[in-house]
């Protein structure tokens, strides 16, 4: 294939990747009541969406879960990454496999198994309806801890451990070595991992769908249920806001990782997830 042909193909793929997203964002600014008939530019649907309790309440729920998930995933993932970096192979390999498993298991399988587990556990401890914000949070942490661990570990292994060794040789314990040497150098990777975990949780549909129970609704669940009645301008406005938030998180994560000098490798690594 000629180089020009390949170039044209590449351009077309980018158009294909971005057109649908841009269509949603553009139509969010449609002043009319109908999605598909343009009646002039307006931001009214953003206002309407933000005044609608059935959108803002799920938004709050989603933000709380995503934030809690990011914090817990960062703690668990970073600890795991530090431990894995220098473990003996017979412990490391199965743990590695376990972490990867949480990422490659089809989400629907994980979602229903978590549902069964929470309901059964509820029966055992005597909680009649255990499903809600907590179960969503717990389930999200499972795969997001792996995401953080993967990113932090790539950075930790990549940067070499000579400074850590020097710190130990100079008499620091693990805790003060971590605080004074490792943490400052890992901070960009932890932050990037946390932002990624935040977005993954904020955007998650399948897992939340199964473990949310009757009384709890996240924003993606809210959007999904309204799709039964077709797309509405308010939903497009909500989607545009979500896209904006996600984009912001990506840009911050990217800038942070890039400044920490091994951006390209991290970017490739992250996206092997």
């Amino acid at each position, binding site marked *: 294939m000629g*180089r020009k042909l*390949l170039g044209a*193909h*590449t351009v077309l*793929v*980018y158009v294909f*990747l*971005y057109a*649908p*997203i841009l*269509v949603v964002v553009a139509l969010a600014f449609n002043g009319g009541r109908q*999605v*598909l*008939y343009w009646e002039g530019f307006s931001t009214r649907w953003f206002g309407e969406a933000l005044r609608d309790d059935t959108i803002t309440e799920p938004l709050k729920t989603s933000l709380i879960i995503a934030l809690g998930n990011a914090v817990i995933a960062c703690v*668990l*993932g970073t600890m795991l990454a530090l*431990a*894995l970096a*220098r473990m*003996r192979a017979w*412990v490391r390999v199965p*743990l590695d496999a376990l972490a990867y498993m*949480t990422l*490659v298991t*089809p*989400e*629907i399988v*994980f979602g*229903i198994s*978590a*549902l*069964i*587990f929470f309901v*059964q556990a509820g029966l055992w401890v005597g909680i009649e309806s255990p499903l809600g914000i907590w179960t969503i949070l*717990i389930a999200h942490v*499972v795969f997001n*801890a792996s995401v953080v661990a993967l990113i932090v570990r*790539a950075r930790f*292994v990549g940067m070499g*451990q000579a400074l850590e060794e020097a710190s130990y040789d100079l008499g620091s314990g*693990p805790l003060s070595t971590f605080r004074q040497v490792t943490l400052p150098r890992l901070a960009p990777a932890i932050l990037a991992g946390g932002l990624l975990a935040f977005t993954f949780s904020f*955007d998650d*549909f*399948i897992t939340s769908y*199964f473990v949310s129970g009757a009384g709890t609704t996240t924003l*993606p669940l809210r*959007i999904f249920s309204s799709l039964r009645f077709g*797309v509405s301008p308010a939903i497009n406005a909500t*989607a545009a806001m*979500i896209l904006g938030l*996600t*984009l912001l998180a*990506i840009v911050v994560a*990217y800038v942070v990782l890039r400044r920490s000098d091994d951006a*390209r490798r991290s*970017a*490739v*690594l992250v*996206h*092997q997830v």
Partner: protein
Amino acid sequence: MAVAAPRAAESRRARRNARAGSGGPRYPGWLALPAVFWYLLFFLGPLAIMASYSFGELSGYADVKFVWNLENYRYLFDGTLYTDVFKRTFVMASIGTLATLAIGFPFAYYLARYAKHKTLLLLLVIVPFWTSFLIRTYSFLIILDPEFPVARALRPLGFPASYELLYTQKAIYIGVVYNYLPLMVLPLYAALERMDWSLVDAAQDLGDSAFRAFRRVTLPLVLPGVLAGSLLVFIPLTGEYLIPEILGGGKTLFAGNLIAQQFLEARDWPFGSAIAMVVIAALTIALLVYARAVGRQEQYG
């Protein structure tokens, strides 16, 4: 794939340290415990309970009785009702994988070999992948609608002749390719980016045609990337739920939809668990085949 190199370097370093006697892991292994606890309790535990559910039976409205037999599996493979769903899922996942490969390979090839500003262009592939799957999927409800402004504008020109895509298999495939393309492109790019293009030039200087050089030099070298990308697309597609639900209008059942149906509507959790177990079994086989292919590649490649 990309983690393999640092990991190898790391184990070399660990061995060297062990020989030098400079003493084991610097950060204690127990740091892994909280995450391991989380995985065991909330991931492996639930999978084990799900497995045992698949040998149980429905009792009453939504309760389960553990009878420990294979009834659910027998029922699943009895007749063609459910085996057709599995076949359809396999076909969809295979076509989806091949389609993303066909579109993604030339794209990744161009990025890796010819493009300037590679990091930025790669980031532009990643951005859609990071944005909400749900939003990306429902955007096609708008685009494939016959009343979509572009479709309306083109209609007087007699193009497209038929715009009845929404809620058909075609719409599902469009959604599949769209959502999974970045997942295919990233490992392909990672493999192509490591390519030493002077090898291709050398082959052509020595008289290979461009096609022959591609087949004999490029392809074997990027095959691991092709396999990794295919796996990353194929695996989640076997459990795909959202795309058929939204773009197929819930009319075409795949394994993922069947599982969801058993859990949310029929409330037959044991039977739903059995379907999920079959999906897991199929994926395990796919992973073993992959591991063998990669192993063979490393052996002879």
